[in-house]
């Protein structure tokens, strides 16, 4: 009998892993793209396995029969730095799914971090997380559809961000007190996540003080153009509420200039809820009147983005409710190129 094993993937496994992805996902899935794979699972600034890969594989003898990606984050947990991983692309060969193959991969990931979490997982995987005692929540979506035709104006102090630097780190140290459980938004992380992305070009706007040197907050926008819908997704936003107002005005301007049908924002947290409402955003009614969540291509089957997490290291004694987390579309792999 061939033995089963769960271990970290190594560079030498990449060929077999690519073949495995082709078999389970079909051709053309983004995870099989070597440049994207290396960016997401090796070159992450807080990758504790670097220069190794943050991927677990389930093997039977020499064959790969399962995969789990761990996108490693440093988390701010009420002022304390802890380790976290967004679990992505959990997939097990169909012969082993009903026998808990995924659970062994998740169990191995749980040994390595304080918090493991994921969003947008499919129904087939839900029982596996549940069997491991994970807690559930959702990412709420807020949408704005009526901005076209309005007068376009840029608020003062808003400029494109070309690079996050030490000025941003200072601002983040001040701002993060407002976010109880949040992936650390250091300059290194933001530069990797948005400016070094191998496939996507984001519009990154910052709110700056007089003289334009000190950044106080930012918004990251992604224009998605599908056959039926053109939308601007706010994939990340960190600022004081007054600055959020300005940033949202700029987002509306950007959406208007690009003739978008909608602007939307996903978050596990209620943070900015009032400011977004003031700016005209409404909670997704999940009716056909609202644009679908997926527009590349348009698909109405997905009606909400789920969220689940677990505090893994029992000795740490950490506790939090789902709404304490500030997880947005850019945290994890929910903002893939396709």
């Amino acid at each position, binding site marked *: 009998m061939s033995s*089963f*094993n769960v271990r970290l993937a190594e560079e030498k496994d990449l060929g077999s892993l690519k073949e495995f992805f082709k078999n389970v996902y079909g051709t053309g899935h983004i995870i099989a793209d070597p440049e994207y794979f290396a960016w997401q699972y090796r070159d992450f600034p807080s990758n504790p396995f670097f220069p190794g890969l943050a991927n677990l594989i389930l093997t039977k003898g020499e064959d790969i029969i399962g995969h789990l990606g761990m996108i490693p984050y440093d988390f701010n947990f009420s002022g304390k730095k802890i380790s976290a991983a967004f679990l992505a692309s959990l997939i097990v060969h169909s012969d082993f*799914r*009903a*026998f*808990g193959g995924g*659970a*062994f991969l998740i169990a191995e990931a749980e040994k390595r971090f304080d918090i493991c979490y994921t969003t947008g997982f499919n129904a087939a995987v839900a*029982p596996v997380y549940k*069997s491991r005692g994970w807690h559930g929540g959702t990412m709420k979506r807020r949408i704005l559809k009526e901005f076209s035709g309005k007068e376009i104006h840029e608020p003062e102090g808003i400029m494109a961000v070309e690079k996050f630097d030490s000025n941003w780190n200072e601002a983040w140290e001040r701002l993060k007190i407002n976010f109880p459980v949040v992936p650390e938004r250091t300059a290194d992380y933001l530069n990797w996540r948005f400016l070094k992305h191998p496939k996507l070009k984001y519009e990154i706007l910052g709110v700056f003080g007089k003289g334009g040197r000190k950044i106080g907050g930012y918004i990251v926008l992604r224009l998605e153009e599908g056959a039926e819908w053109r939308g601007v997704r706010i994939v990340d936003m960190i600022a004081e509420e007054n600055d959020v107002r300005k940033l949202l005005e700029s987002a509306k301007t950007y959406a208007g200039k690009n003739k978008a049908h909608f602007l939307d924002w996903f978050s596990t947290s209620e943070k900015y809820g009032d400011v977004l409402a003031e700016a005209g955003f409404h909670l997704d009614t999940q009716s056909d009147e609202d644009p679908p969540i997926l527009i590349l291509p348009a698909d109405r089957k997905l009606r909400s983005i789920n969220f689940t997490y677990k505090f893994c290291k029992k000795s740490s004694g950490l506790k939090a409710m789902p709404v304490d987390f500030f997880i947005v579309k850019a945290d994890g792999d929910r903002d893939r190129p396709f």
Partner: protein
Amino acid sequence: MEKIKNIAMRIFGVAGAEVNDEMSPKNTGNWDSMNYLLFIAELEKEFGITLDMDDVLSAKNLGDIKEALRVKGARL
């Protein structure tokens, strides 16, 4: 076998007559990964043994699980 049958009936929601060595995900609607792992956990507790990853993943049906339990010294 009575202990295994009772656990299987409770976890998978099947009648006693449906619990046999051929029982597997192919013929048992409620056999998903979560119920299977709950089933394994209940068996381990009942018989005071621990099944390893090879036992759990290489099983194809209830007969294989019973065999793994016997090898580990469980008195079925």
